[in-house]
């Protein structure tokens, strides 16, 4: 077991290997954060749409979820990276003028964001539906509009209820950033493979990568636990009805 390789220099550069891995981790986290913003925003909108009383909106939301849930992530990556720019001429020109790394990053963010949004939409919908029907009626009875009802009554409680499954989705998102290596994004998994292949120290490299991913997952978990504590409603245990 040779653990000092992490401090050796990369063959064609003058940085140590650990810095390459750290840079990879930075890309992983950046991708995850940006994708989460999209996922949470789009997922909330779609989830809410599926609980309104306008059937066309419900169907549209369902369509979105079905499309993004039934195609494997790697296929979606390929679609966004190759097929979509290939079919849309305007995108084609934009992409060829773009910095390749930026294109990979943006593709990864959009792909992961929309993929995770479908799953968050499911959670948001489940959260809203789990609220007693009377809450919505009580809000209407006071004269609140549909939008006000969602904003002030339904969503605040629904979000609190779904913090555990949302935590899962956040951890899944971080794990799924590894798939971005397939389009060349130099995130952590890319760097891990690269280092393992060049130094041949597969065990040590994979072990460290495992630790880093594990630590990241643990941190995400703790972060959400903190969010849950901070948003707890007095008098309710985890916001049970």
């Amino acid at each position, binding site marked *: 077991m040779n653990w000092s390789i992490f401090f050796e220099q990369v063959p064609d550069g003058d940085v140590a290997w650990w810095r390459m891995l750290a840079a990879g981790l930075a890309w992983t986290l950046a991708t995850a954060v940006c994708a989460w913003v999209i996922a949470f925003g789009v997922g909330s909108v779609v989830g809410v749409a599926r609980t309104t009383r306008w059937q066309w909106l419900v169907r549209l939301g369902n369509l979105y979820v079905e499309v993004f849930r039934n195609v494997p992530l790697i296929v979606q990556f390929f679609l966004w990276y190759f097929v979509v720019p290939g079919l849309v001429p305007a995108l084609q020109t934009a992409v060829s003028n773009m910095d390749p790394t930026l294109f990979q990053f943006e593709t990864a963010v959009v792909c992961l964001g929309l993929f995770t949004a479908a799953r968050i939409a499911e959670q948001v919908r489940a959260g809203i539906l789990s609220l007693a029907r009377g*809450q919505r*009626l009580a809000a209407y*009875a*006071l*004269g609140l509009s549909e939008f006000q009802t969602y904003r*002030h009554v339904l969503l605040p409680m629904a979000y*609190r209820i779904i913090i555990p499954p949302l935590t899962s989705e956040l951890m899944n998102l971080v794990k799924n950033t590894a798939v971005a290596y397939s389009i060349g994004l130099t995130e952590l998994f890319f760097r891990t493979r690269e280092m393992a292949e060049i130094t041949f120290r597969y065990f040590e490299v994979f072990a460290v990568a495992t630790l880093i991913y594990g630590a990241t997952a643990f941190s995400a978990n703790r972060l959400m636990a903190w969010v849950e504590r901070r948003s707890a409603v007095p*008098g309710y245990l985890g916001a049970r009805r």
Partner: protein
Amino acid sequence: MESVPENAMISIRKVSKWYGAFKVLSDCSTEVKKGQVVVVCGPSGSGKSTLIKCVNALEPFQEGTITVDGTSVGDPATDLPKLRSRVGMVFQHFELFPHLSIMDNLTLAQIKVLHRDRQAALDKGLALLTRVGLRDQAAKFPGQLSGGQQQRVAIARALCMDPIAMLFDEPTSALDPEMINEVLDVMVQLAGEGMTMMCVTHEMGFARKVAHRVVFMDKGEIVEDVPSSEFFGNPEARAERARQFLSKILQH
């Protein structure tokens, strides 16, 4: 706008409602005049909760008309949030918003719907909270209150909107027996002040005390609609179904 009887705050005319193929309300007609207290009772499944929810358009209905202070509830052009802000409703399960403090529960709709400024809303909220006897609970959250306290706050919340009428949907059915009276006392007081009230309830003691009229429903139809003195004083003249119901209820 069709003419409505004088002083009829709530007017229900020939209302029918279906859930799919199942008819839940059949040709219901009744009215609540200004300042009147009308109690709606009947066995479960009789449609009484559904009927009262039609009054403020929480439930749609397919036939008939409902008018509240001259505004037609079923008319597509009616501004429903505006209508609902003028009619207060109290629910069986209180339905306070658990993530908001008591004060926020009381002021939310005042600020967002009536566009009152924050201080005015707070003052009104505190005043009504005091009126239902819960001034010291202002900073708490619904989850920290008992059922009876939550229901009294719910009544205060509805009153904060300065409603022209109040609808009660089985307000004491979900309460433990020792808390029923504290809520009924508030309702009796409200009636005494001349509020127009329509109450779905099993509490016949309350009905006998303050109701002007009693409406008995069974299987989606209005079977009896008589002054309360008639309903309680002259049970032999009542329909068979109503008598059966009364005899079961009044055993307590």
